[in-house]
C-alpha cells in the first residue's frame, strides 16, 4: 500500500516537472512572438505588421522566398525520386554506398555547402584554376543568383524527398505489384498504374518538407544572395537586425510571423492534397521490388555516379583545394601546396579556437541535457493516451518545424530583458543560444527514444513493478539499458545538427560568442575564403566521422533512427 502511494507520487512529480519544462521551452517563444505581432494592432496602419506589409521589400523578399524554395523543391523532387526509385526498386549495385553519399549533403551544414560550391564555380575557383578551366577574370559568379540559391536548396533537400519516398516504396506491398503483373501489366504499366499512384503520398510529403525547409534555410541564401542583394525573408530579417539593431524588433517580429504563416500554409496545402487519398496498405511489405535493369544497369549506374560526382564530390574537392592553396588565384601544385590555412587556424586566430569551443560546448551541453529530457519524456509518454501523446508531439515539433530565424527572433524577444526573479540577462551570452538549441532540437532527440520505447514489451516493466521497483528504479534498472543505444543516437544527432548550426546563432551571437557556423559565414563574407574552406573541411570530416559512428551503432537501434541506413 505504502509502496503504491510512493510510486504514484514519484510518477506525478516527474510528469509535472518534465511537462512544465518542455512546454516552457517549446510554447513560450512562439507565444511571445505572436504577442509582439499582435501588440500593435490598435495603431491601425501604423502597427508594425501593417508597416511591414506596406513595404515593397517585404513582398519582394516573399516572392524571392517562394521562387527559390519552389524551384529548389522541384530540383529536390527530381533528384530525390530518381535516387529513391532506382535505389529501392531496382537491382542496381553498391546501394549502401550510394545511399550514404546521397544522404551526405543533408548532413553537411548549408553554409559549408554554399562555400564549397562557391569554391567550385566562378573565376576565382582554385580547383578550376588548377585544372585550367576557370572562366576569365571579371566574369560573374553564376551562383550569386536566384537559380544558384534554388539549385543548392534542391541539392541540400533532395535527401528529404528521397527519405519520404523511400519509406513509402519500402512499405509498398510486393503482392500488389505481383497481382498487377499476373493480370497482364508490363513494367511500364506497373509503374504508371501502381507504383506512381501508390507512392504519390510519399512524394507529396517529401516535397512539402523540402519546400518548408527551403523557406527556412538561411545559410544558402545568405552566402549566395546577400552579395547580389537578393534577399529572401530570412536574410531580410538578418539584414534588418544587423543594420538597425534591436529597435526594429517589432518589425522583424512581424516578418517572422509572415514566414511562419507561409510555412504553415505549405503544410496545410500538403494535408489538403493527402486528404483525398488516405488508404492503408495491406499485405506483405518490407522488401523492395527487384526490377531487373538488364542492359540499362550500367548506363543508370553511370548516371547516378556522375550526379553524385557533380553534387557531392566536385564541390568537396573544390573545398579541399581551396583550403590548400596559399592565396586565391594560385594554382594548386606540389610547390604551392600549403597548410598555412590550417596552421593559422590553430596558431594565430584566437577567434577560430573560440568558435570551435563555443560550438562544441553548446552542442555537447544540448545533446546531454536533451538525452536526459527525452528519455524521461519518452518514458512518461508511454502511459499517456494516444491523443495526449500526439498533441504533446505536435507541441514539440513547433520550434523544429518553424524556420530558424523565427525561433531566433522569438528568443530575442523573450530574453532581451533580464529574467524575472533570477535577474540574469541571457541575451548577449551563450545562454540564449543554448536555450534556443534545446527548444529547436528536442524533437530530434526524442524521436529515436520514443521509437525504441514503443518496441519494448510492456510486461518487462510490469514485472519490475511486481518485484517492487518504483518509477525511477524501473527506468534506471530495466528500461534504460534497453533504450540506451537509441538515447545515445538521439544525442549524437543533436550534436551533429547543433555543432554546425547557423540560422539560429546568426541572429543570437555576439562578439566573443561566435559559433562555428557564424565563423565560416563571417570569414567568407570578409573575403577570407581560404581559411573558411579549411574550417569547412574540418566540419565535413567531423560530420562524416559522426555519421560513420552512427552507422556502426545501427544494429542496436530501432529501424528508421538512422536516415541513411536501410
Amino acid at each position, binding site marked *: 500500500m505504502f509502496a503504491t502511494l510512493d510510486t504514484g507520487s514519484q510518477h506525478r512529480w516527474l510528469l509535472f516537472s518534465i511537462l512544465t519544462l518542455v512546454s516552457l521551452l517549446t510554447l513560450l517563444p512562439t507565444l511571445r512572438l505572436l504577442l509582439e505581432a499582435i501588440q500593435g494592432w490598435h495603431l491601425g496602419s501604423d502597427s508594425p505588421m501593417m508597416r511591414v506589409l506596406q513595404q515593397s521589400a517585404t513582398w519582394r523578399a516573399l516572392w524571392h522566398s517562394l521562387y527559390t524554395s519552389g524551384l529548389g523543391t522541384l530540383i529536390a523532387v527530381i533528384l530525390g525520386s530518381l535516387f529513391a526509385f532506382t535505389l529501392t526498386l531496382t537491382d542496381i549495385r553498391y546501394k549502401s554506398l550510394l545511399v550514404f553519399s546521397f544522404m551526405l549533403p543533408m548532413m553537411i551544414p548549408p553554409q559549408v555547402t554554399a562555400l564549397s560550391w562557391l569554391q567550385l564555380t566562378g573565376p576565382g575557383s582554385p580547383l578550376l584554376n588548377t585544372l585550367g578551366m576557370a572562366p576569365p577574370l571579371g566574369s560573374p559568379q553564376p551562383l550569386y543568383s536566384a537559380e544558384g540559391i534554388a539549385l543548392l536548396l534542391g541539392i541540400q533537400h533532395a535527401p528529404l524527398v528521397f527519405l519520404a519516398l523511400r519509406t513509402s516504396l519500402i512499405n509498398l506491398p510486393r503482392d500488389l505489384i505481383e497481382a498487377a503483373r499476373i*493480370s497482364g501489366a508490363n513494367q511500364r504499366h506497373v509503374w504508371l498504374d501502381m507504383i506512381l499512384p*501508390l507512392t504519390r503520398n510519399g512524394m507529396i510529403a517529401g516535397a512539402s518538407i523540402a519546400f518548408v525547409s527551403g523557406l527556412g534555410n538561411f545559410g544558402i541564401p545568405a552566402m549566395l544572395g546577400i552579395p547580389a542583394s537578393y534577399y529572401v525573408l530570412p536574410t531580410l530579417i538578418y539584414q534588418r537586425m544587423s543594420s538597425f539593431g534591436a529597435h526594429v524588433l517589432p518589425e522583424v517580429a512581424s516578418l517572422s510571423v509572415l514566414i511562419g504563416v507561409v510555412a504553415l500554409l505549405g503544410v496545410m496545402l500538403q494535408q489538403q492534397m493527402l486528404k483525398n487519398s488516405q488508404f492503408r496498405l495491406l499485405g506483405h511489405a518490407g522488401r523492395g521490388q527487384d526490377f531487373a535493369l538488364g542492359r540499362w544497369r550500367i548506363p543508370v549506374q553511370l548516371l547516378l555516379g556522375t550526379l553524385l560526382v557533380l553534387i557531392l564530390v566536385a564541390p568537396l574537392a573544390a573545398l579541399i583545394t581551396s583550403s590548400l592553396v596559399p592565396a586565391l588565384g594560385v594554382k594548386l601544385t606540389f610547390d604551392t601546396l600549403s597548410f598555412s590555412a590550417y596552421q593559422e587556424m590553430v596558431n594565430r586566430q584566437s577567434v577560430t579556437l573560440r568558435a570551435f569551443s563555443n560550438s562544441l560546448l553548446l552542442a555537447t551541453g544540448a545533446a546531454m541535457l536533451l538525452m536526459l529530457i527525452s528519455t524521461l519524456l519518452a518514458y512518461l509518454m508511454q502511459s499517456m493516451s494516444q491523443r495526449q501523446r500526439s498533441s504533446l508531439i505536435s507541441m514539440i515539433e513547433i520550434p523544429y518545424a518553424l524556420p530558424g530565424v523565427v525561433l531566433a527572433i522569438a528568443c530575442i524577444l523573450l530574453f532581451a530583458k533580464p529574467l524575472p526573479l533570477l535577474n540574469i540577462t541571457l541575451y548577449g551570452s551563450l545562454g540564449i543560444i543554448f536555450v534556443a538549441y534545446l527548444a529547436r532540437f528536442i524533437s530530434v532527440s526524442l524521436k529515436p527514444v520514443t521509437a525504441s520505447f514503443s518496441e519494448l514489451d510492456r510486461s518487462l516493466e510490469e514485472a519490475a513493478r511486481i518485484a517492487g521497483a518504483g518509477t525511477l528504479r524501473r527506468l534506471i534498472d530495466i528500461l534504460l539499458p534497453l533504450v540506451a543505444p537509441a538515447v545515445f543516437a538521439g544525442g549524437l544527432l543533436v550534436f551533429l545538427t547543433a555543432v554546425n548550426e547557423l540560422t539560429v546563432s546568426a541572429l543570437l551571437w555576439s562578439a566573443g560568442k561566435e559559433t562555428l557556423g557564424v565563423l565560416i559565414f563571417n570569414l567568407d563574407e570578409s573575403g577570407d575564403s581560404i581559411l573558411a574552406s579549411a574550417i569547412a573541411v574540418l566540419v565535413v570530416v567531423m560530420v562524416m566521422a559522426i555519421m560513420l559512428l552512427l552507422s556502426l551503432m545501427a544494429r542496436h537501434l530501432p529501424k528508421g533512427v538512422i536516415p541513411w541506413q536501410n
Partner: protein
Amino acid sequence: MAELILEQVSKRFGQSLAVNNLSLNIQQGAFVALLGPSGCGKTTTLRMLAGFETLSSGRILLNDTCLASDGWQVPTEDRNMGMVFQSYALWPHMSVADNVGYPLKHRRIKGGEYTRRVMLALETVQMEALAQRMPQDLSGGQRQRVALARCLVTDPDVVLLDEPLANLDRHLRASMEESFREFHRRTGATLIYVTHDQSEAMSLADQIAVMHQGQLVQWAKPEELYQTPKTQWIAGFIGQGSIIHLADVVPGQCLQASDLMALTARSGEQRTPVLIRPEHIRLHLDDNPHEKPSLLPPAAHSLQARTLPARVLSSFFRGERYEIKVQLINGDELTCYHHTGLTEGAQIHLTLEQGWSLEPAA
C-alpha cells in the same frame, strides 16, 4: 491432353536449395494442393509457376509450350494465369470494379464487353452490389471474393492460390472453401493451391503434392495419402496415428490383424516403422487374462495370442469420443479412441486390426 508439367525443377537461393528436382504432371482442370510445413518450398514452386522466380534448372511446360527453363522464361504478364494472394492484394487506389477489370485492360477488352465481363465476374462471387466500393471498405471475406472475381474475369488456364484462407477466421473458412469448389466447377481451370493446413488440402484438392525440405515426398489422392503414406514423416504430418516398430517387414505393405499380432511377438535387427491409425485399434476392457493364467482353455489361449497387454497413460475427453494414449510392454506408445474414459495406469488389452508399413524417417 493439355497439361501443366514440371520437369526436374530446382530453385537455389545462394547456398540453400529451396526446391530440389521437383517433377509433377498436372492434368488440365485438376484441383491440386501443394502441401507442406513452412519452408518446404511450396510457395517458391508457386512463384516459379507464376513467373515471379526464375528456375535454377529444369523446365515448366503448359499445353506443350515451354513457360520456363533455366535462365529463360515467359514473363508473368504473358502467361494468362490468375492468382489469389494471401493478403488478397487488392489495389487500394482502385474501386472493386476497377480491380476486377484491370486484367481485361491488358487484353485490349473495352467498352460494353469490358463492363459485361466485369459484372459477370462480380455476379459469380455475389459482389455486384458493391462494385463501386473501395477495397478498404470491405470485410475480409468480401475482399477474398473480389480477388477471386479478378482471377476469373479473364478465363485463365491456371489459377494459383497462395494460402488464401490463412487470414480468415474459422467460420469464414468453411464458406470460402465452398466458394473455391464452386469456382473450380464453374471455370474448369487448373487450380494450384498452396497450404500448410492438411485438412484444408484434404477436403479441397483431388490431388496433393506433399513437399518436405524442398523435395516432393508423395504425389497422391487425399485418400491414398491418408491410408498409404509413403514415409514416417508424412504419416506424422497427416491425420492422427501412432508408429510401432516391427521386424521382418518391408515398407509399403498393408498388414492385417493376424500378421500384426504375430509380428509383434518377433524380435529382429531390421525394424520397420508401421503406422497404426486410431480407428484400427480395438480395446478389450471386460476380461482380465492375468487372473487365472494356469487354467486357460485353448480358446482363451488363442485370445491371448491375438491381444496385447497395455497400460493407460492418459485419457482426454474430445467431444464425440475419448482420446486414449496407451503404452505397450516394449515401450511403443499408441493413440486410440474409446466411447468411455479410462483410468490412468489401468491395465488393458488391445487388438491391432490394420497397419501400414512405412519408409523410415529421412
